[in-house]
């Protein structure tokens, strides 16, 4: 019986992603653009925040992807450590730059929104600070991948780092909350709670979120395919060196 794991067999993975990737990419592009165009052109301004409310159509989805990308990397790393599925760990490697860019977008859009709202680009608000820390974790994770030559050793060590890093990321989140109790989180300024948000803002935000999720998926699949090929390439080149 075909198990779930067979989907992660590299050959099978390459076959099904070859067909699925274009479809996912098209859906991603359509939803991403639809959400942002809807949000940008066809939503009213918020009565207090004015036009800056439009920034949330990128800020909130990118922030959610930024966190969930790390979560995905954690799960993929665990699967690698336990079941030794190469595709899994390469997917984690492929997701890291995407997560990092999403973190950067969340930080940048948050800072730009903060300037007119809080009067400053940067505030050591727990959320912003946590994202800065998350960004540092992404940088460290990617730097470790780059530094290690042997692909299996790199996979093992980065997975261990991802595991330990996750624990410390959660600890940091609590510590940061404790350190600065979030003076700037008035409920009316948060779009995270659905009940506070009127439908006119909520629906385009949902579409944009779906677009971001699919975009993330498409990018991760594309990059995973590249990583699988790169690994095969590495294996061949190593053998050529032995022979030559």
């Amino acid at each position, binding site marked *: 019986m075909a198990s779930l794991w067979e989907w992660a067999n590299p050959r099978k993975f390459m076959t099904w992603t070859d067909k699925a990737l274009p479809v996912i990419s098209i859906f991603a592009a359509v939803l991403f653009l639809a959400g942002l165009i809807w949000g940008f052109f066809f939503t009213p301004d918020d009565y207090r925040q004015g036009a800056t409310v439009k*920034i949330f159509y990128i800020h909130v989805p990118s922030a959610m992807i930024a966190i969930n990308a790390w979560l995905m990397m954690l799960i993929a790393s665990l699967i690698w450590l336990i079941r030794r599925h190469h595709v899994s760990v390469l997917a984690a490697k492929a997701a890291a730059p995407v997560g990092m860019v999403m973190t950067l977008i969340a930080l940048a859009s948050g800072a730009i929104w903060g300037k007119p709202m809080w009067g400053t680009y940067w505030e050591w608000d727990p959320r912003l600070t946590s994202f800065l820390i998350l960004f540092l974790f992404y940088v460290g994770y990617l730097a470790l991948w780059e530094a290690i030559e042997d692909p299996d050793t790199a996979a093992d060590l980065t997975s261990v780092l991802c595991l330990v890093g996750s624990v410390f990321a959660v600890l940091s989140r609590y510590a940061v909350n404790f350190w600065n109790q979030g003076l700037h989180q008035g409920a009316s300024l948060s779009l995270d709670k659905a009940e506070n948000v009127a439908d006119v803002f909520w629906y385009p935000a949902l579409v944009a979120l779906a677009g971001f999720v699919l975009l993330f998926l498409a990018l991760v699949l594309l990059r995973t395919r590249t990583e699988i090929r790169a690994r095969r390439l590495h294996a061949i080149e190593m053998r050529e060196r032995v022979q030559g």
Partner: protein
Amino acid sequence: MMPDLGKYAGDVFAAYGITFVLLGGLIALSLIRAARIKKRLQAAEERRKTNG
């Protein structure tokens, strides 16, 4: 067509601009690397077939 963004126009454009630049860069880099690795791998597989 263009909505009136009022005094926050600059901020909103900056946010969208940065997003598109960053995402565009990421997508472009991913595609370039995908194409390059694919080409190199194909060349390597060819060498393998002919030599080995």
